[in-house]
């Protein structure tokens, strides 16, 4: 294996509770803490571990987003990626477009493996990796919780509804990662300094001949229905009584 490409999406930090704009036109994003999508950190961590086990593997972090996405790519470089590519755009990028961008870069870079998160925690789409694999005409292994390589192929265990499922795929392949694959490392200060010198190329959708087509129109954004605050009971006996009265047990 020589090259691994990793998707790094800039999203609202998972600890931040977002609010919906009063006029229903979207989500208030101004001033919120932005981070690397948690699943993408896991994807990058996995790439770095593969690199550290093998020899001479280049890890390339890729993001599609606004100019400020350079911050998240610098974080990826500080974690240990060798170089980064920002496909800079202000357009809202749907998964099919993201997949087309990754395809265009895959054709330029010829990676042996593309690691993405299983989902971005903003749109919660869970589509990009599968779409990319289809367009690239390569295997996909989704929700990976364990990845093992042998010559020219990989065995991937996925978290599925019924438990765990293992498949074998030929390389190159696209894999999307789940939470329990690994625990991402913390970035150390000297690494942040070093990362400033690593290459970060900025390109555009035009340069990759990908249109920013949106297929879906968002008509309205609303807060979810709120649950009413309930009652408190004092002990187990009262709890059983209440539940019996409600006919629940």
């Amino acid at each position, binding site marked *: 294996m020589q090259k691994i490409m990793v998707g790094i999406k800039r999203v*609202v930090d*998972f600890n931040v*509770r977002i609010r919906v704009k009063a006029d229903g036109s979207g989500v208030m994003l101004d001033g919120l803490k932005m981070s690397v999508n948690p699943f993408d950190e896991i994807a990058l961590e996995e790439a770095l571990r593969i690199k550290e086990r093998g020899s001479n593997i280049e890890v390339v972090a890729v993001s599609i987003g606004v100019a400020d996405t350079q911050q998240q790519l610098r974080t990826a470089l500080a974690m240990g990626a060798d170089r980064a590519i920002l496909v800079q755009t202000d357009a809202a990028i749907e*998964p*099919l477009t993201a997949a087309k961008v990754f395809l265009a870069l895959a054709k330029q870079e010829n990676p042996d493996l593309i690691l993405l998160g*299983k*989902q971005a*925690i903003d749109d*919660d*789409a*869970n589509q990009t*990796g*599968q*779409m*990319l*694999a*289809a367009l690239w005409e*390569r*295997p996909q292994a*989704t*929700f990976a*919780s364990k990845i093992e390589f042998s010559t020219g192929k990989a065995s991937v265990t*996925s*978290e*599925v*509804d*019924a*438990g*765990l*499922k*293992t498949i*074998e*795929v*030929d390389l190159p*392949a696209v894999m999307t990662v*789940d*939470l329990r694959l690994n625990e991402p490392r913390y970035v150390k200060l000297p690494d942040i300094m070093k990362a400033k010198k690593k290459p970060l190329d900025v390109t555009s959708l035009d340069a990759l001949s990908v249109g920013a087509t949106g*297929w*879906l*129109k*968002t*008509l309205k*954004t*609303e807060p*979810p229905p709120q*649950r009413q*605050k*309930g*009652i*408190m*009971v004092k*002990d*187990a*006996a009262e*709890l*059983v009584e209440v*539940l019996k009265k*409600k006919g*629940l*047990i």
Partner: protein
Amino acid sequence: MHKILIIGEHDGKTLNPATAKCVTCAAGIPEAEITVAVFGADTSTVATQAAALSGVKAVLRVDRAENLHPLAAIFAPQLAALAADYTHVFGPSTSFGKDLMPRTAALLGVAQVSDLMAVEGAYRFRRPIYAGNAIVTVEADPSRKLIATVRVASFQAAPAGGNATVASKSLDVSLPSHTRYIGAKSGSTDRPDLQTAARVISGGRALGSAENFKLLFSLADKLGAAVGASRAAVDAGYAPNEMQVGQTGKIISPEIYIAIGISGAIQHLTGIKDARTIVAINKDGEAPIFEVADVGLVGDLFQIVPELERLIG
């Protein structure tokens, strides 16, 4: 008329209830004509089950040796070929559907709408974003095929009582050999399935060990409940991954959900928003779970759970 194709999920013997929920979602589309496709090595049994779902007009069996195990790389080109005659293609928002549907959409060159939670028109739907902290109404282009996954917790299963035609379909599609099935491991139990159970008891990090989780199993058996877990409990190895409830685990909609020693992080709450009644037991009266609980009890679970079991008898 809208011709809707639903990919049936099954294990060769039983049709997954997620399919019946997709049927209900599809039936909400104006002038819907619903077809269910089942892919497998031998789909005779599951095809009969699909044909019995009320609202289904036709069932298509796509039997082929390569379809023995569901692999997206193998199923997607066949589903894409089958999709030619339909305006909509739906799959469940389960690990099976999430794997398969986007690959199919990309082969067809169209976008996908993930996690439909309500139908507002043939091309207009509501879906959750930001772990369910916002709900968007989206509209897709009616001139294109619509591919979607259905958030199964948002729909009731279509009842029995249907009498659909069943036909076999052979598809002339060449399949890749780059993806191979190796095996599966499931912690199968006699307990009710988490995603369809009317009662669910879940434990969090507070349980402290796999051994202590037995407290919950024992209470669950008394109540005929399924058992779930928070991510912290799964990560710590107290419970297997298939028990995880939440944004990255299962989204469930039981009649009653009892959260025991779970703090109530937004990613966990995402999974239980559709529960009819939420009960929380936590020793910290300030735990966020109490903000959504219908009934709350502050106290030590190691004292309360055995007591509950005794009281329920």
